């Protein structure tokens, strides 16, 4: 009788443990994630030509980060932007840019991190950038800061147009520099 009681209690204990774990696992195993605030976040690119420099930006893009449980360490990030939303203030130039990046075929540029090193406010982000149908590993530095109830992440990186198989646009038969600088300032509302 005593043996049966102990076995019964043990089984009860197992089930209670499992129920407890189920309640915890939904918050423990899915990392907290934050989405960029549209309108306050900006993604820019810079192109340089011997005659002048071009800067275009979009505030209409998707960016999401995962935070480590209980800390504000960023463990992963992904973003995607519609290439037609970039505005340099000159739609003729933007139309030309859309032609060289073949926007009808590759309408998006996206990034998915594979590793992020957090060192205080400094971040070292590695991941995969997909642009013009070409996917390449890139890494760049970024900084994060907390302003009020917002987490602001800023950073930039350079990529090669040739590596992404983008034909460099020309003005007056002179081609732009191969380096495309990308910079971003992304704001997230902290929970």
């Amino acid at each position, binding site marked *: 009788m*005593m*043996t049966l009681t*102990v*076995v019964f*209690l*043990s*089984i009860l*204990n*197992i*089930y209670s*443990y*499992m129920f407890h*774990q189920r309640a915890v*696992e939904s918050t423990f*195993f*899915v990392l907290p*994630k934050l*989405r960029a605030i549209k309108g306050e976040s900006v993604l820019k690119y810079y192109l340089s030509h011997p*005659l*002048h420099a071009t800067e275009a930006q979009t505030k209409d*893009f*998707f960016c*999401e980060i995962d935070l480590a449980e209980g800390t504000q360490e960023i463990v*992963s990030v*992904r*973003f*995607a932007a*519609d290439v*037609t939303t970039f*505005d340099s*203030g*000159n*739609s*003729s*130039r*933007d*139309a*030309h840019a*859309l*032609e060289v990046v*073949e*926007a*009808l*075929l*590759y*309408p*998006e540029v*996206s990034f*998915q991190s594979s590793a992020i090193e957090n060192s205080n406010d400094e971040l070292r982000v590695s991941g995969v950038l997909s642009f013009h149908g070409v996917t390449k590993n890139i890494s760049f530095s970024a900084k994060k800061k907390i302003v009020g109830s917002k987490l602001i992440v800023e950073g930039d990186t350079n990529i090669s147009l040739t590596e992404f198989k983008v034909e460099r646009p*020309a*003005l*007056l*038969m002179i081609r732009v520099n191969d380096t495309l600088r990308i910079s971003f300032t992304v704001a997230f509302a902290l929970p």
Partner: protein
Amino acid sequence: MIRLPSCLAYVLLFSVLSHTGAYAQFKRSLTVQVFVSESFSLLSKDRSPCSDAPSFPCTHPDDSTETVLSPRAPKLLPDNLTIFESVLWGSGGLFRGFSPLTSEARRRELDFRRTMLSTHQVLGFATLALMSASVIFGQILLNDYEAFRFEEALRNRQTHRTLSIITFGTYMSTAAMSTFAPPPLIRRDEWNTVSTHKLFAIFHFSGMVAQPILAIMASNSRDLEQIRTLRRAHQIVGYFTLAALAAAMLTLTF
């Protein structure tokens, strides 16, 4: 009376059974954790939860309702087409008979547009060089007339005439490359360098139309005073057209 060894045995049994359950649960938790991380990577690789079009994952798996970045259907034509673009390349344009308004066709058209605009640039430079030479020989010819050097004037007149005809041909070809090019993908309502370029184009096109008319009128006239007036007008319009063409090209560099 419960004996101590029995109690210890029961405690041991209880402990083993409980830890077996905990271990099973731990394994299950690990599986869940791996599953969650895999879901992320699978979503980003598949890019298909929102549509067939290539797109970034629009939601997290536990976020079933919201679409963050819905893939937009690419707009094939800009809202504000020019008259020529509407007639030729609009949704009901003349060329739509053999080039229907599809994404694939538009991609080909944009390639064609780039070729036409690149040719427009090259021909533009050639036109500027030819027009400069034409203006220089026109000025030399006028100087010959003023100085009554008729023999030189005869020779320079032929050179000026030949250069002017070639200039006219390359100019009109340059204009055609721009005017008949398929429309771009986007065009916003704004004033930009290309708008200024087109404004100057109105001036130099008017000049290019006026020049041969003035030249023919001067050649056909028998009234010396009228000939002088027409030559003077031809000279002024020539310089004006050259300046407008050069300015149109310069605006693109800003």
